[in-house]
């Protein structure tokens, strides 16, 4: 079996948004639409630390579809527009099938990783960006990270994990079912946290801290707390 996913090193991540921008460029995302976002663990706003001097702390993590082994979204889709691909584990989103009911958005516990196009998608500049092959965005459909399925089909990594794209060298992509893969080795070495691991969704995005500089700062706990604080709202943690 193949179980594709990512490992994100929160020590090396500096919250620069380059991966988020690479996603936007590759998938030609419409205005104000981000499939991969940078969240700050710390203060109330983006880039601000938590705590009081001198006991301050700050971390970043990126959030997109978690490509769960046991996704909540796929079970509720009435038309099979979102489904888990058996061959590689990608949780896919098919705009042609999507009827815009947004059941998947309600079912997914990772608030904000999906986006619904209420209107015709708008673009600042009249060109379609990216390496080519990303599906065209449509009004009244739900969309999200597909691990750049169109790139996977060409044997390439997702845009946010392509070679040298991450200025911090913090992002790794691979197959968790292959024990020799880099991502499996990183997990073996550093452990790794999953978001909302108690929801039985078994996400395939793992967060590690390669230096343990902020071991007391659990990404998972911070995410959970932030979700509780903003329950019922679309806003999640200090995002852009």
């Amino acid at each position: 079996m193949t179980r594709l996913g990512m490992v994100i090193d929160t020590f090396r991540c500096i919250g620069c948004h380059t991966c988020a921008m690479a996603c936007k460029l590759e998938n030609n995302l419409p205005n104000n639409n981000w499939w991969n976002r940078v969240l700050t663990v710390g203060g109330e706003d983006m880039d601000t630390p938590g705590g009081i001097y001198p006991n301050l702390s700050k971390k970043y993590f990126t959030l997109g579809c978690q490509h769960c082994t046991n996704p909540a979204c796929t079970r509720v889709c009435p038309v099979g527009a979102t489904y888990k691909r058996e061959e590689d584990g990608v949780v896919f989103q098919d705009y042609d099938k999507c009827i815009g009911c947004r059941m998947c958005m309600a079912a997914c516990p990772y608030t904000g990783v999906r986006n619904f196009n209420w209107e015709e998608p708008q673009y600042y500049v009249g060109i379609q960006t990216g390496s080519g092959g990303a599906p065209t965005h449509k009004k009244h459909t739900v969309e999200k990270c597909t691990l750049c399925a169109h790139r996977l089909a060409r044997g390439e990594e997702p845009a946010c994990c392509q070679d040298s794209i991450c200025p911090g060298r913090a992002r790794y992509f691979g197959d968790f079912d292959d024990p020799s893969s880099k991502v499996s080795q990183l997990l073996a070495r550093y452990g790794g946290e999953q978001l909302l691991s108690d929801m039985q969704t078994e996400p395939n995005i793992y967060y590690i801290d390669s230096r343990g500089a902020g071991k007391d700062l659990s990404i998972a706990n911070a995410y959970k707390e932030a979700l509780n604080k903003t329950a019922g709202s679309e806003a999640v943690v200090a995002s852009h």
Partner: protein
Amino acid sequence: MLEDTPALESRALTRRGFLKTSALVAGALAAYGGTTLLSGCDQNSIVQMTSNDDTYANCICRVNCFGACRIKCTIREGKIVNFAPAPLLDPNYNRICLRGLTHFQRIYDPDRILYPLKRIEGTKRGTNEFEQITWDEAIELFSSKINEAAEKYGPQSLGIWGASGSLSTINGGGGTPSFMFRFCNFQGATNIQNSVDMAQSHGQSRVVGGNMSSGLGDLINSKYIVTWGYNATESTIHSWHLIADGIDAGAKLVVIDPTYTTLASKADKWFQVKPGTDVALALSLMNVIYSNNLHDVDFLTNYTCAPFLVKPDGTYLRMSDLGMPAQTIPAASPLSAPTVIDPIAVWDTATDAAVNSEDGLAKTPAIEGTFTVAGQKCKTAFSHLIDEFSKYDPEFASEIVGLTPMQIKELALICADGPVAHLSGYGNQAYSTGVTVGAALATLPAITGNYGYEGAQQGTHWKFFPGFNYMPTMFESLADAANMDMTKFHSAKTIPNMCLPDVLEKGTFGFLDSTTGTYKETDWSLKILWQYVGNPMSNTGGTNILKEKVFSKFDFVVTSDNTFTDTCLWSDLILPIPHYFEQAEVHASGEHGFIMYSEKALEPMGESKSDADILRALTPKVKEWKFDATANSGKGGYVWTGEYMAKFFTQTDDEYTQDILTSEYCANLNISVDSLKKNGCMYDGTNPGIPMKGADGRPTFLTETGKVMFYTEHPAPRVNWGQKFDIDFERLPRYKGSFEASSDDVDLRKKFKFVIMSERPRFRVHSSWWSAPWLRELEPEPIVKINPEDAKSLGINNHDYVKVSNDRGHAIAKAIYHAGIRQGTVVYPKGWQEHQHKDGHGWSDLVNPEPDLVGVNGNFMDVLANIELWKG
């Protein structure tokens, strides 16, 4: 080409109301973070493309962030659609960033300047009333202004001001040997030097002769990485993973910064110093190191000026003082000075006598003490330094720098436990005392011998290619330069931009009189301002003063740009230039050690012309002037030769670029236009990660003596116009309060409560990318980060708008609570254009434009102001 771009389709269209629209857009983004008014295209026209017919070009992003990213651009159906890191010779340096991924939004910006624009007759500058004109009209207008002013006031009346908006070669700024630099020299115009981030290198050069950083690749060999005023994770994000590699290899990260930066959040130790006090800290660290006998006597004796004897008049005791005549070697060329050989003397404890420091006979020179030589009491340079740092014991320094004595001692022990990589940013030198920061930080590693071996380094990481041949900017041809034919030599005078208010007021500037060797106030009329590769109205301190005392004093203001900046707004003529990726160039400046060829991905859009092409179009109409001592009834003056400047600008881009790459340095590395075109990327000889040591394995310094010269016999200001300054103060790294941030003026500190610091955010480079919509989605409006305790005491809630003001002006921004801001300071991300702020005033309003007389350097951090709730 994007023919259907909405900008300036009709010739009669003016830019009236441009700013209103843009401000509205910024407001809409800020308020809703959602719907936008910018949508420039009909989404139905977007057709799913396949990538089969894509072509690629490897282009260099040429802004001054030090990254120098080589970017693989994808061109599809004639448009640039994708960006990815292109390979460098060492893949560890392959790079791109969030900004680099949005270049298409600059290229296809609906508001991009694509045609020459002229301020409408009868309107005032700054009111945004422009009309489109043809290039023929623009050239006619500009050249006639230049010629008229030259005839009336002399050719120096044209001031050319370039910044660092492009650091390539032929169309570059930032000190590159560009075509524009050649024009400035040949015309005899005034080179207006963009005086930014130059103080530290001036102080450092005094001490070690140049930058002693061995590159970030060497960090894997360091025991400690100590950063000084270096916001690497924000301003130079590509340096972070190399720092992280050092940490992975075992180095401890120690951050010295008033602000809890992202880098500080990764650090083992963070020292929250007071802004503008790094020199006092460095002196206190030397104090602790010396008091604990942790200084390296062998290194000090053999590799520094420590044993050099200083006479009571402050100059070095030289062998000529002891009866050995000085030798003078005549100047090798008309452009160089004669060399005087007169070695400095040291005290030899073996023979109890002053002896030559250079003949190798003094086996045991004293590094401390005062000795009577030829009736004069001479003290060693190290004893002078000891006298200075002795004042800064940790208890005394504690109050100045804002650290506890224990913290200072802890940091000193770290500095003594090498190899240490002392990495400097440019934050700590953006104070009126910036030169001494450079000198002190270069001196500190010398005390413990922390130079010249793996893992030990000190400096910044901006590198300038050492292989350029500057002769083509001054001589008519390479052959003329080889023959030193001074009849074919042309040069311009330089005036730092910070001196402009004064020069324009008085109409004079102090230039060196070669006959007397003194500086003489010389009549100097400036009438026309031409700005290129820069946005000084936004990026220079004191915007109101700049408008009133600089821009308004020029008869005619011209700006070359492709985005409508604050500077364009205050211009009379705007010349459209291509985007970086629309012209082929060689690029050689940056943080990594590679020189690269930037391919042309697209044709220049609209009617844009490169700087070089503008000069080719302009110079056939610009008159050539020659100084004639008999003119003007014998008073001397410039006369027209009857010819035009075009004869000096006949070379193609490649021909000129090859000339400036014709040097021994380039030849040794096989660097030429052809080899760069063929290889794309080549080592530039400053390979990252190589310690600065000579062939014999000993440290080498770029000073005249080859040693660390922490005692400077004849300190000079960075730019000399005969100004008076305290020479003795400058001889050693000494601390004093700065103009404002660390001012000793109690009344001033009482009047203004906050030090206003800026950061260079990852969302812009200076003001570049100010309008890129994807970046504005992430960072929609100006903010100011404030410590919550300070904010609460002022009744300011998180996200309230605040007014930050001082006697020079004000700016409005959204307050963001940030517990990592040092109390008494605030930090703002810089680079917004004025209209992006509520009520239209920007951060640069607050910055002091007054030059310190030694560094003559932008004091961007040296700002005091007050903060209050803005009630709108």
